[in-house]
């Protein structure tokens, strides 16, 4: 509080400009595995050694995608729920026909291993930033499920950690490139003329959790599940990993998630910002509109484009272009490698390129969700200074950029 955060922008500039310098330094990329390549499986020196953190619902799917790749050697799992941890280990052991996969309750033990090159993370959202930053500090590349952040403050710190240690860090959401192809092709191909705006319909916001205490089962490390979030009594719905956002899952509650606004928001806002090509930007203004009692927000970008959320009588991903005017077509970015977003990440681990969902553009997407959420929470329009990462002239909104983490957890 005593010091302005104006240095953030220049630090990011430093990180960006020195990336070129980084490429001038040859650092050997070491993959350690003793298995020999055969039957179409690459030799150990070409395989990426991986582990998974948070391997329940979504994490299990991610695990399958990495485990089934011939260029990945999967060696470890971490989850605070014993049955899920054991199931995840068994899946790996069955695949390789041995019992080598190590299972950890505490992710820090997995990250401390020096033989692991990359991790995938699919814990509840309130853990993402801590784990991604710690993984980068440990020299790991990271595939982190969306939404990548729980607060505004977390994103830049994750980007800085990734850039500091030259790590490949990919956000999740296979839908950004997979679900909106037709729209993206129209926008990038110039068919709609210069784009003016796009609308996203998604929700709800997450809420305060007042669930009553239940008997805590021995199969979950509850303190570690809560991690940096405020202490709360165990309740099975509080930590349920189903995809609902209306009360029966952790995705419903603000201590762990931004609700549908960030969960599906990562997909829809991701698709929208991709379609109108503002993935490298952040809005500089959030306008709270009131149309006959229906409140919705409009996020304005410095280049004049705008993104509305839940605008009345407007479809999801509805684009307003300029019919009759031309716009120069641009080639649409694509995944590298093979195997969708997972293959894109693995290919980038090998080549050290930036993945399609590079953490910086992923953070820019989820920031849209956070900015809109804070405008709804405060019930007012806000000015966002992306360079300083703060709301201009709004002390109370600035207080909502982050929260004090429960000890011993820090970013």
């Amino acid at each position, binding site marked *: 509080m005593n010091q302005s955060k104006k240095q953030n922008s*220049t*630090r990011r500039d430093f990180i960006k400009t*020195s990336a070129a*310098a980084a490429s001038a330094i040859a650092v050997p990329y070491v993959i350690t595995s003793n298995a020999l390549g055969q039957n179409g499986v690459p030799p150990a020196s070409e395989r990426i050694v991986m582990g998974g953190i948070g391997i329940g619902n979504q994490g299990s799917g991610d695990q399958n995608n990495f485990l089934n790749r011939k260029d990945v050697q999967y060696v470890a799992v971490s989850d605070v729920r014993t049955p899920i941890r054991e199931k995840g280990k068994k899946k790996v052991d069955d695949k390789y026909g041995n019992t080598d996969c190590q299972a950890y309750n505490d992710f820090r033990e997995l990250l401390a291993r020096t033989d692991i090159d990359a991790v995938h993370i699919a814990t509840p959202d309130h853990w993402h930033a801590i784990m991604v930053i710690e993984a980068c500090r440990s020299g790991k590349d990271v595939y982190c499920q969306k939404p990548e952040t729980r607060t505004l403050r977390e994103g830049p710190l994750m980007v800085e950690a990734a850039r*500091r240690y030259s790590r490949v860090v990919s956000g999740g959401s296979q839908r950004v490139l997979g679900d909106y192809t037709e729209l993206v092709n129209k926008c990038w191909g110039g068919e709609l003329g210069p784009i003016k705006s796009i609308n996203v319909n998604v929700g709800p916001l997450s809420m305060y959790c007042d669930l009553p205490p239940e008997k805590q089962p021995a199969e979950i490390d509850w303190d570690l599940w809560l991690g940096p979030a405020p202490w709360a009594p165990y309740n099975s719905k509080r930590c349920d990993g189903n995809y609902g956002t209306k009360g029966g899952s952790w995705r419903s509650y603000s201590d762990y998630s931004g609700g549908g606004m960030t969960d599906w928001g990562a997909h829809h806002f991701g698709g929208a910002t991709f379609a109108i090509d503002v993935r490298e930007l952040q809005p500089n203004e959030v306008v709270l509109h009131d149309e006959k009692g229906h409140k919705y927000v409009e996020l304005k970008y410095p280049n004049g484009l705008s993104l509305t959320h839940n605008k009345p009588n407007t479809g999801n991903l509805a684009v307003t272009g300029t019919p009759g005017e031309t716009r120069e077509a641009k080639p649409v970015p694509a995944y590298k490698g093979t195997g969708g977003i997972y293959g894109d990440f693995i290919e980038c681990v090998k080549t050290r390129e930036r993945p399609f969902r590079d953490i910086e553009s992923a953070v820019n997407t989820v920031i849209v969700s956070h900015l809109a959420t804070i405008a709804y929470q405060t019930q007012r329009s806000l000015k966002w200074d992306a360079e300083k990462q703060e709301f201009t002239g709004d002390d*109370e909104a600035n207080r909502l950029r982050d*929260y004090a*983490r429960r000890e*011993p957890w820090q970013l």
Partner: protein
Amino acid sequence: MLDQAIEALGSYDWGKDYATIKPIEEAVVSTQGDTEARKELEEKLASVLQSDASRAAKDYVCRQLRVIGTAASVPATAKLLFDKEFAHMARYALENNPSPEAGAALRDALPKVEGLLQVGILSSLGDRKDHQSIAAIAALLDSSDANVARASATALGDIQTVEASQALTNCKSTDAAVVSAVIDASLRCAESFLASGNKAAALPIYKKYSTAEQKHVQLAAKRGMLSALGK
């Protein structure tokens, strides 16, 4: 309605009727810009912290004070910094409270607690970029409690002054987690110095870690050196 909600906090607990207390958070929004109403609301909430209300009720109050807390509620909140059950939520209220009194309360509590409570206060002082606490934080870098030492290093990495950076160089811990935190904090300081044009302060840090055992640390340091040297 608001008075009833405040009264309901006296018997509120997780799983009880949340609707009875919800008017409080509605008042937090509706009183924005109304100094008198805010003052009254803050006083009432602070009084709950001094009562026998449940952990859930005080948790709820701290969530509201995170948004509206001023110097007025600091004394009541700061008392909770010494209580294992409430310390985190006290920081939840105090950490983003911009009043100097909030920073002073955290600084005052730092040497009076230990273990996880000390880790938490270190974290909050770092997040506040509290320059006045650098010496006190630095004194804990060599704590025998690795959690405390690690938190101290991270806090200094948040503060990012030359003094904070200098303190990091004096850390003698060999604990792997502490060493990792010291390296990261030092590199963060160096990035900050470089960004502000203070290459003279950045360069020694980068030089120190340019021969680090870990390749990714070495890479970070060499990159920094090149930037500091304008290459």
